[in-house]
């Protein structure tokens, strides 16, 4: 069997038969692939711990008839601290599901960029004290941008005029912001303060340091969160399941 190596982020796993797992991997080389980890559910398996979601490993894979087979793996990053903090663990889980939803199997275009983007987001989540939702919304917006789904936030999606200050709106179905005169112009429009709009506009541009220096108000973050929640659901054409649990955690804070 021909084989190949890849650097992979585990984004989903399912049980297969008695002892195996079927993994969805996002690789830097090939994009999203599926692979079988044989025996991964036996406690003595060399794969058992490595096949947890958001683990990054170097893998040796064998090309199989229908599914590729994981033959060796070496953990590069386990993001262990993320696994001891509920808020961050829930967000890392959500990142994986989001990446899975917005990518197709074996689409190598953008693969390296998306891999870097995702592991960088996990690293920020792990290494900084920053508001995990700032990192989350930045990740959402950048992933959307890379896949050509950016919401329009600098001009009104209804009249096309540039958006100036003041209370504006956001319509998930129309795909972006609504100017102050059109802000009730769509059935699904939600209102945004000028600050929330500013956050939506700047998050995709900022990286690392600049992101951490951002301290939006709680209200602005809630508005951004609500707007993106519905926008993403619409663009993904289905619910992002792990977002429900995240909503619960946010509500109980």
């Amino acid at each position: 069997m021909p084989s190949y190596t890849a650097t992979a982020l585990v984004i989903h796993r399912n049980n297969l038969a008695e002892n195996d797992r079927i993994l969805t991997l996002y690789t830097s080389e090939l994009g999203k692939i599926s692979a079988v980890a044989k025996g991964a559910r036996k406690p003595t398996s060399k794969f058992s711990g490595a096949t947890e979601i958001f683990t990054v490993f170097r893998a040796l894979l064998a090309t199989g008839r229908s599914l590729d087979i994981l033959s060796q793996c070496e953990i590069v990053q386990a993001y262990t601290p993320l696994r001891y903090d509920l808020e961050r663990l829930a967000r890392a889980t959500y990142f994986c599901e989001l990446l899975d939803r917005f990518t197709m199997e074996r689409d190598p275009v953008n693969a390296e960029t998306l891999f870097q983007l995702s592991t960088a987001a996990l690293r920020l989540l792990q290494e900084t004290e920053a508001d995990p939702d700032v990192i989350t919304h930045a990740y959402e917006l950048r992933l959307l941008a890379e896949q050509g789904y950016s919401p329009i936030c600098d001009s009104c999606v209804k009249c096309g005029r540039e958006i100036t200050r003041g209370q504006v709106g956001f319509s998930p179905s129309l795909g972006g912001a609504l100017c102050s005169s059109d802000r009730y112009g769509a059935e699904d429009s939600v209102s945004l303060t000028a600050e929330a709009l500013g956050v939506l506009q700047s998050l995709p541009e900022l990286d690392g340091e600049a992101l951490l220096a951002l301290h939006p108000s709680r209200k602005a973050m809630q508005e951004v969160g609500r707007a993106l929640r519905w926008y993403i659901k619409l663009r993904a054409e289905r619910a992002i399941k792990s977002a429900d649990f995240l909503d619960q955690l946010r509500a109980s804070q």
Partner: protein
Amino acid sequence: MKHYPKPLGKLVGELERLPGVGPKSAQRMAFHLMRLPYEEAKRFADAILEVKDQIKLCKECSNFTDQEVCEVCRDTKRDRTIMCIVAETHDLIAMEKTNEYRGLYHVLQGLISPMDNITPEMLKIREIFPRVANGVTEVILAFNPTTEGQTTALFLASRLKPLGVRVSQIAHGLPAGGNLDYADQATLISALQWRREI
């Protein structure tokens, strides 16, 4: 199923839905069952229905039982100040086999799994709080060392600690009698994380 007589095809179909059973084994089992003496086959079918009719969840701990309150919960010799929370009944059985633990249990009937849309209210979590209020001072969380197990443990800890109970989690690490240099990286990372002073 078109090669089988209808009733046999139906049986093969049902068996194939069992966990870990493929089409080949389903066929083998179906032929075996078909050749059983009538009485034996009936015993088998009755056993399935009896389980369905008689097994329910214990009113106290949500363990599977054929009574209102399960045997563990009825045992007056158990320490009622300590409670071990597990995901499934088979985890409770595994803990019992250690002969080391004499406290109460609580069975969640699953683990929180956000990606599969299994959220806390779908599990037997609500039922924990009145029990804790009733004299439990220590809770031990005993889940599989998986992302789901960890999510569940952290969630429960965040809800139980404010109530003033001591919450601990079983250690994750090397198997007893194992070899350090054969251990996979993830296990070693977790063993390091769970190290303790001696």
